[in-house]
């Protein structure tokens, strides 16, 4: 009852405040016209007629994330990596705990849920891969795809139990290797055009994608007439694997049984 009163008070407050805002200023609704900065991005993100400014990607958001402000995104990836390192450090000191006699058909939830998961988990992975691989064409990208793909191991962990994943090689160590490979790929992609410039003896920048007026080397925008937007496609793939493996590590560590920790509860 007390909560209901509180809820009604809050809703009335919001409605009254909205009414006040609408009455007080008629100009609060943002205008429909595109602002100057946005117009620059929309004009240049895919524009073959101005080759020194374009990213060759029809997806403006991915262009901004991995090209115009690529260094920021590299640091974001680093922050995520440090968070994963922190969670691994928190889970230190557990030993491998696999019960001697395991009946895999008895673990987890019912047969109905398992059958549904057998159908949906591959679909989730496919959708995630599509989001990541088309990140330079349609809304999406590496992080979005990786986060979507991490739902599949989560479902399997809860519905089939974690021994099911561990028996199939999805372990903390193997996921750490996948994650490190993804991060290495991101690093190599970041300096690839710079190294190409060094080899060719022309000026080039770190995190450069397409050719600039003072730096005439560029990553290939098309492979076999398929638009890959230079470095964006590679960034998205490597980020996909790094994020997918990172989330899987955290979920695996969270679902470790308590008695796997030395001196913990349980036995």
């Amino acid at each position: 009852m007390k909560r209901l009163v509180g809820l009604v008070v809050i809703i009335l407050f919001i409605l009254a405040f909205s009414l006040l805002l609408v009455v007080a200023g008629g100009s609060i609704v943002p205008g429909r016209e595109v602002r100057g900065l946005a117009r620059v991005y929309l004009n240049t993100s895919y524009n073959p007629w101005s080759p020194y400014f374009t990213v060759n990607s029809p997806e403006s958001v991915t262009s901004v994330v991995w090209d115009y402000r690529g260094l920021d995104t590299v640091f974001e990836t680093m922050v995520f990596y440090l968070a994963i390192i922190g969670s691994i450090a928190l889970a230190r000191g557990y030993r491998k705990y696999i019960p001697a006699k395991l009946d895999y058909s008895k673990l987890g939830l019912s047969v109905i849920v398992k059958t549904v998961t057998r159908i949906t988990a591959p679909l989730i992975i496919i959708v995630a891969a599509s989001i990541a691989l088309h990140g330079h064409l349609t809304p999406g990208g590496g992080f979005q795809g990786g986060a979507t793909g991490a739902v599949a191991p989560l479902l399997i962990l809860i519905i089939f139990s974690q021994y099911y994943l561990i028996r199939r090689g999805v372990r903390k160590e193997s996921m750490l290797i996948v994650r490190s490979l993804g991060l290495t790929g991101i690093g190599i992609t970041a300096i690839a055009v710079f190294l190409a410039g060094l080899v060719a003896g022309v000026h080039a920048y770190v995190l450069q994608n397409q050719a600039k007026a003072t730096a005439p080397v560029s990553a290939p925008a098309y492979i076999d007439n398929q638009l890959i937007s230079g470095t964006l496609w590679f960034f998205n793939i490597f980020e996909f694997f790094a994020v997918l493996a990172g989330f899987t590590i955290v979920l695996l560590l969270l679902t470790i049984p308590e008695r796997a920790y030395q001196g913990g509860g349980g036995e």
Partner: protein
Amino acid sequence: MIGPMEIMIGITALAALFSTAATYLAVTEKDLVKAVIYSAIQSTIYAFIYYMLMAPDIVLVYIPVAVGLYPAVILVLIRKTERWEKD
């Protein structure tokens, strides 16, 4: 004159109001499992609001993280600690 733009913004505003109610219920709920469900409802509404505000990139990252991963992680944590919040 009510055009499609006004209807869209009106639905978004209504959804925002519901999300506030869900947030309030999540904060005041003593049963933490129910609180997580309220929080997931709020996240679902937020995903809808992002979609209406034409930010599909945010929707794609918000749905798996805020509706899938985050409630699951919190539920695992509740399972390992305790379900009821004490006064």
